[in-house]
C-alpha cells in the first residue's frame, strides 16, 4: 500500500465518523410517533405509546408495523430480502426502518399521531 492509499482510508473513516456523529446528535431524542411513507407519500402516523400492529398491503407487498413497549419494528414482510425485519427496533427521532423492495419507510418523528388514518386499504 502507498501513502495516498492510507490517506484515502483515513478520509473515508473521518467522513463516516463525522456523519455518524451528526446523525446521532441530529436525532436521539425519544420520539412521539412513527410515520410510515410508501412511495414517498405519508401512509399514516402511529403513536409510540400505543401498542399496535398495523398491516400495510400496498401494490408492492405486505409489511406489518409493530409497536411494542415504545419501540417499533417490522414483521411479516413478504419482500424478497427481509432486510426490513432485520433492522431491529426504532424509538428515537430520525431513526428509520426501510423496506426497499416495497418502497416503505418508517421514521420516528417528534409529533403526535395524526387522527386521520389514511392507511391500510
Amino acid at each position: 500500500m502507498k501513502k495516498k492509499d492510507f490517506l484515502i482510508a483515513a478520509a473515508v473513516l473521518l467522513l463516516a465518523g463525522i456523519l455518524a456523529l451528526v446523525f446521532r446528535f441530529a436525532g436521539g431524542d425519544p420520539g412521539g410517533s412513527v410515520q410510515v411513507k410508501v412511495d414517498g407519500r405519508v401512509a399514516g402516523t402511529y403513536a409510540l405509546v400505543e401498542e399496535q400492529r398495523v398491516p400495510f398491503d400496498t401494490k408492492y407487498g405486505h409489511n406489518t408495523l409493530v409497536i411494542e413497549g415504545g419501540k417499533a419494528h417490522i414483521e411479516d414482510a413478504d419482500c424478497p430480502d427481509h432486510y426490513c425485519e432485520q433492522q431491529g427496533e426504532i424509538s428515537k427521532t430520525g431513526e428509520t426502518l426501510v423496506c426497499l423492495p416495497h418502497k416503505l419507510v418508517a421514521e420516528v418523528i417528534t409529533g403526535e399521531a395524526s387522527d386521520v388514518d389514511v392507511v391500510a386499504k
Partner: protein
Amino acid sequence: MATSRKSPTGTPGRRVALDGILVALAMIFSYMETFIPFNFGVPGIKLGLANLVVLLGLTFLPAVDVLLISLVRILLSSLLFGNVMSLWYSLAGGLLSFAAMYLLSRRDDISLIGMSMTGGVLHNVGQVITAAIVVRTLQLAGYLPVLLVAGLVTGAIIGTLAKLLMPRVQKALQSFQ
C-alpha cells in the same frame, strides 16, 4: 465502441478475446457472490468480487473496454441472478465506482488497494443514492456511515486480492500472444 487498431493489447483479435474472457470471469464472480451471505440488514453491501475484473482490466486494457465489460456484466447478472430493481442499484454503484477507479488508475501514487477502496466506497454511495430516489426519502443517508466503512473494508479485501493476482495475470498475458 472504440475501434482503435493501435490498442495497447496487441491485435484487435487479441483485444476482443481478452474482453470476452474478462466478461466470462466477471460473470463467474457475480454468480459466486450470490452464494456469499453478507447480510448486515442494510441493502447494498456486497464483497464486490466482480470488481477484481475492473481493477485488473484497467491495468492492461483500454478503459472503454473495461467499462463495456462492466456494463455487460451488470446487465447479464441482473438478468440472471437479480431483477429490474437490482439492475438500477448495480448500474449506479458500478458506474460511480468505475469512474473513480479509472481516474485513480492513471495516477502512480495510488495502488490497486487505494483504487479498490475508493471504488468500494463509491459503489455503496451510488446504491444509497439510488435507494433514496426509489423510496423518495433522504432519511436513507443514515445508512451512509455503515456503508462507507463497509465499502472501505470490502474494497481493501478485493484490492489485496487483485494485488496478489497481478503477477500471475501478467504472466498469463505474456503467454497469451
